[in-house]
């Protein structure tokens, strides 16, 4: 697995890392809960046939500045700047969980600035009868199994790499969780249902079959509300962060949809 190219864009005076790899038509990627502490096999799968552009969201590994964002509108404006400045306007964009929510918002508010959309269990809804799991109220040993079907995958994803600073690395991972909390605390509910009907782009809704965070019923709600043509697909053997659990199957589903 070779490393991506790193560039930096400025968002509200804070540096924001953009990773790029591959060749072919562009595809944007906004990562899920926890961000991208490292490049992943899933992104490599996409990069085989596409130019993958993966900017970091504020407060997630590679970017700071989440503390400037006080409202959901602040976050949406930041996400739009990130998408535009990393050259993804008018392109295919995919996103997972936290990142998926911002992809959906962008597609709703600027419907002509996106080609096709793939969303993996995006956040933003909350149904009292079928509540999403509180990812921030987990005992330390339980969290990996909540996020991934295979807990070890999450542990490896977040483990301190050789040579990294053993104090700053964990702080960066907590910061990513805080950044998500800053926008989604306490229920993950951004009332996205009000804006989903504005999405005109063809939309793929992907769900890990063993997603323990976002109920599968949310996929149906989203599909019903999105104006554009929607397709729902579940990924066997995957949890909430399907791209980490099943990189090949998840990438294949997205590439087929966007081909």
């Amino acid at each position, binding site marked *: 697995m070779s490393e991506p190219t790193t560039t930096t864009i400025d968002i509200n005076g804070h540096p924001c890392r953009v990773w790029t790899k591959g060749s072919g038509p562009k595809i944007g990627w906004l990562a899920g809960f926890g961000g991208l502490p490292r490049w992943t096999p899933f992104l490599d799968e996409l990069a085989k046939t596409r130019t993958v552009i993966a900017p970091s969201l504020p407060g997630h590994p590679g970017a700071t500045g989440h503390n400037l964002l006080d409202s959901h509108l602040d976050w949406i404006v930041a996400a739009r700047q990130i998408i535009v400045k990393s050259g993804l306007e008018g392109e295919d964009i995919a996103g997972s969980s936290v990142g998926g929510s911002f992809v959906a918002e962008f597609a709703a508010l600027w419907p002509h600035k996106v080609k096709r959309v793939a969303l993996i269990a995006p956040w933003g809804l909350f149904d009292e009868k079928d509540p999403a799991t509180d990812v921030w109220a987990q005992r330390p040993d339980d969290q990996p199994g909540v996020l991934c079907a295979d807990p070890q995958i999450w542990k490896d994803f977040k483990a301190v790499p050789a040579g990294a600073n053993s*104090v700053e690395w964990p702080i960066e991972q907590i910061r990513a969780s805080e950044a998500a909390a800053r926008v989604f605390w306490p229920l993950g509910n951004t009332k996205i249902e009000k804006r989903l009907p504005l999405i005109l782009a063809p939309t793929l809704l992907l769900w890990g079959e063993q997603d323990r965070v976002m109920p599968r019923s949310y996929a149906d709600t989203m599909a019903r509300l999105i104006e554009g043509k929607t397709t729902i697909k579940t990924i066997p053997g995957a949890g909430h962060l399907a791209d980490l659990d099943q990189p090949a199957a998840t990438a294949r589903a997205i590439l087929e949809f966007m081909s």
Partner: protein
Amino acid sequence: MKLMWFHLMPYTELPDDFREKHPSVWVDIHSTLFDPKRAHHMYNDFMDELEFAADCGFDAVCVNEHHSNGYGLMPSPNLIASALARRTTDTALCVMGNSLALYNPPTRVAEEFAMIDCISGGRLIAGFPVGTPMDTCYAYGTNPSMLREKYMEAHDLVMRAWTEKETFAFNGRFNQQRYVNIWPRPVQEPHPPVWIPGGGSVETWAWCAKMDYVYAYLSYYGYKAGLKTMQGFWGEMEKLGKDRNPYRAGFLQFVGVAPTRSEAMERYAEAAEYFYGRCLHVDLKYASPPGYNTEATQRVGLESQVRAAAEAAADPSKGKDALAAQGTTGSTTGTRFNMVAKTMEDIVDRGYVIVGSPKDVEEQLREVAVNMNVGHLMLLLQYGNMSKDLAKYNTKMFADHVAPKLRPLFAEWEDKWWPKPMEKAKRAELPAFAPSVQAAE
């Protein structure tokens, strides 16, 4: 020195198998464990105890705020403080305090504290805690990433509401109010003394120094665990050019007094074991919301963990001590809950509770006060499921046999952070409480 009587108001009838059958005393403690008719008696007992402490001559009675909590039945300490304002005369009322970020708008705190200050004739100490993760982020749903920013802004708003004479517009990041003009205003000028209950964060110490507020370390883990924190506080004060006036600081300590040490061990064991066994049984999933601890505080905690691990690797015997110390002084609430001692021997051995004869207790508390350089000692003389009779006994023993010996400590220093009430002659006369008359009516 000042000796202050602190009540947490714990629910006293959690079942014996609470730890085994229930995941947490906080946040999602089950409603079926709460019997309002029993709580009626508990509240009235607790208020009797607070009033009794005032009668016994304690310098202050203290109450605090918790939510969805089986060991703290005061979601609104202001309710209790206002009742105490009418049933005490000269005792300071220490509300420790109101978690500023939880009030919307925060001027509610300025108003209610001003009411208590007016009713009591200027006896209020205004405590402003950030609040625990369990209270603020989980029970009250406050965003952990914004909690401290909201707290600081609410503080600024309350202080302006107390001190500005004209109606003003507050244009904050989180609060906007066109017309801020609280009625009533506090008796104490320019405002009641402000105390900040906090953990061991350097930012809090520096802020207390800058604002000239009292820093109160409200730990349940006693003087042995608290010493390092208080030394850190005084080190920071020295760095900032502040004097060592012991009244800059407060410290919480559990105490049990009896004629002899063995009798004290016997009398207070049940209550102490109830508190440390059941009341601190908190589900770790509620201990560390991301962003609650600042990155600077996380850094200090992680660096000390790395150091402790290195010591453990180099010398297992020493390293074990370093790791054990992490359990009570570590950076996260969860670490502390996880490592807490639960048997009376361990509880006393680790210094969570100081027990003994009046002489034992006096000597230990003198050492605590001197070593920590703390002029405000906040004493928990009721804890866990301690009965009213035992709480009153403990209170009286302390007041009669320990307090007189300790009070002269730090006489050379002025307590600039104590309430300044109205002259006694100018204060309202409180009618004598006559329950028998009421009963006859």
